[in-house]
């Protein structure tokens, strides 16, 4: 081995030799003869090694470098310049210098910060919703059905109670729903009645739409319920349930990656950024479902103001709406915003006799 070494200027590195037998350390000077031999100056009796067995650890910040020769002993040194010179001349480093150079550069750090900020903004604006959408659409119908049924069972066991609506009223509403359903043959839509959670309606990923007795009682016109059901069908059509799950996971992972274990640093508010981002996705879904409902209502000739009417009733029942910062945590867009969207389109659809 030694014979293959080219002739170099001899080099030396000061450090502490730890035998690996105990914590006892010896101040030594490692000397390379410029060819194949390394001696440790300072170790009683002296030690000699073949340069071909030498391994020099990769650099990380200003932390000590290690040099070993395959055995238990190890030299630790903060004589950085000397270690780098030895590494260059012998080629016995473990590499990692490109990483070290990246980590040493403020220019690159600044560039990366910009990349990170722009990248995560774009990722959350377009990337995550796109991926979630693709994944949700690619999910087989049987899996979606499983998810929906599982959720329904869970809800029935915890929050929901059987409906007390008269059978006649139920079949009336089912017929109304059937009209809507005809337009969306590709969706396995099904209407169920429940009660116990206040005036509400929601859709499960498998196409099950739930309507509460309370909402049925709150409405003053069945067209208001049609509007709500159209909105829920919009959620099914866009597979929002599944997308939400995927987006939620993406958000948690991202927050974990960027902030690490924040609570360890004494910040107990780690959940807040995640909650805000999550809520933005949710608001996006609601807007999508509103658009869907609006189109549906226009097609079947129901005036959009019915949607406004029921929204207003719900609003009145729920009290004041979120203002200021709280809005960023809300799962739905502000009612005023939704009302504005429906109000704006209303004039164009005032063709039908039922619009007053």
């Amino acid at each position, binding site marked *: 081995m030694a014979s293959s070494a080219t002739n170099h200027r001899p080099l030396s590195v000061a450090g*502490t030799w*730890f*035998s*690996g037998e*105990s*914590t*006892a*350390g*010896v*101040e030594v000077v490692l000397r390379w003869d410029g060819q194949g031999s390394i001696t440790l100056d300072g170790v*009683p009796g002296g030690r000699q090694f073949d340069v071909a067995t030498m391994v020099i650890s990769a650099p*990380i*910040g*200003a*932390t*000590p470098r*290690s040099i070993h020769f395959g055995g*238990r*002993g*190890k030299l*630790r040194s903060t004589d950085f310049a000397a270690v780098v010179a030895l590494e260059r001349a012998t080629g016995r480093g473990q590499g990692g210098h490109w*990483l070290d150079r*990246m*980590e*040493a*550069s403020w220019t*690159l*750090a600044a560039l*990366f*910060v910009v990349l*990170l*900020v722009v990248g995560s903004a774009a990722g959350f604006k377009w990337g995550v919703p796109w991926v979630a959408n693709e994944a949700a659409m690619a999910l087989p119908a049987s899996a979606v059905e*499983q*998810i929906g049924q*599982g959720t329904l*069972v*869970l809800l029935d066991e915890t929050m929901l109670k059987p409906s007390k609506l008269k059978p006649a009223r139920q079949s009336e509403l089912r017929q109304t729903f059937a009209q809507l359903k005809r337009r969306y043959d590709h969706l396995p839509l099904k209407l169920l009645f429940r009660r116990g959670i206040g005036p509400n309606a929601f859709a499960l990923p498998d196409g099950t739409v739930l309507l509460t007795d309370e909402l049925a009682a709150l409405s003053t016109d069945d067209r208001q319920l049609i509007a709500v059901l159209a909105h829920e069908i919009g959620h099914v059509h866009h597979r929002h349930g599944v997308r939400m*799950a995927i987006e939620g*996971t993406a958000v948690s992972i991202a927050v*974990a*990656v*960027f*902030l*690490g*274990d924040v609570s*360890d*640093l*004494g*910040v*107990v*508010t*780690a959940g807040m*950024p995640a909650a805000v981002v999550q809520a933005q996705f949710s608001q996006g879904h609601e807007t999508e479902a509103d658009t869907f409902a609006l189109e549906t209502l226009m097609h079947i000739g129901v005036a959009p103001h019915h949607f406004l009417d029921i929204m207003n009733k719900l609003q009145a029942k729920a009290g*004041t*709406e*979120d*203002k*200021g*910062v*709280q809005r960023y945590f809300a799962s739905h867009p502000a009612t005023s915003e939704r009302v504005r969207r429906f109000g704006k389109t209303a004039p164009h659809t005032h063709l039908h006799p039922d619009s007053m």
Partner: protein
Amino acid sequence: MTEDPNSEAPVIEEALAAFEFAPEVDRGPGAIPPPPPPPPPAAVAPLPPIAATPLVTAAPPATRTLPFVFTGTGAEYFRIWIVNVVLSVLTLGVYSAWAKCRSRQYFYGHTSLDGSAFEYLADPLQILKGRIIVAFILGLLVAAEALSPVVYLLLLGALVLATPLLMVSAFRFNARNSAWRNVRFGFEGTVEQAYKTYLNIVGLSMLTCGLAAPYTQWLWSEFIVGKHRFGDETLSWRTKANDFITLYIYMVPMSIALYVLLFGGITVATAGAQLFAGDAAPADTSGGAGAAMSAMMMVVMGLFYALVTIPTAFFRARMANLVLGGIGLGPHELRSEQKFGELLKVYLLNIVTLVFSLGLAWPWAKVRLVAYRNSRLSCLAQGELVMRAGAAHDAGDGIGDAALDLGDLDLDLGF
């Protein structure tokens, strides 16, 4: 009873969290080296201080207080961190194993005792292996949660049952890959011992409805600390169960005071908002009242988080002192003297730093905390810190039964 400030820890770490220094080891990029005990007696030339030349001198049994010195800086760590984050994202997470290694190597390498820095020796490929296992388990859980509640609960149950096994594996991995002066740490707790301790804890907790928390936490800490070794010497732990119980008793009035303040705050805020609304245009209820209300709520929320930080700081400072400060190795002892007020200040500064930088100043926050912990940690050495590696060192790498050698399993992403 009192709040567990670590309650947000992920599943595998949950039990670890009981143990103040384990989280440091496992989560952070490696605060203080793992079982951060320092070393022992023998004779030799330590580094900078005494530049003695060679070997065995009859060490005078003089007692010295040796500080743990942390030399890392936020600026230096920031550049490592940003590279870690960006490369991890660009490689879809694969680089995160290397990121974790570099982060830990950075913190270990900048933490020194008696002039010698600690060393983190893990192979990133091993960490990657652990990562893949964890990702697989999490993937299964997510899929099961969506598809079938029954399968999800079964899986969760299996994971709970496997917790002691996973933890022993992680302790072994971390200890084996931590060294000081070329002598490695080790963890010799067996899987059976872990299960026994775990069962005792679960049983006691159920029997007492959780009231035994201080005692069970102590049991677990004792298991973890007492099974660590440095070189061929096992760590000792002076902390008694009573010390834990006393700390929890202190937490009771603190928690009560906190809740009183909090509910008082909400009441006052609500009343204030209504007053405000009365003054504002009475016609526009949703405007005046709504805005005043939400402003007040934000203030209350902010106050709440600031308030929660107070008992958290108190608890963690005391806990660190009890856990770390009770460690002994042969004739040498560790001292941890974190002060409630000082730690609180670090926490509050970190909150401000993180909020105003939108999280980008994370490295400075991390370094501030690690530097503080180290500044309050020292070793009371009897003579020179000389310890033998012993036969255990050789066995250390091989002993971990293949089945247990799962690599590094903790969820910490390494930033």
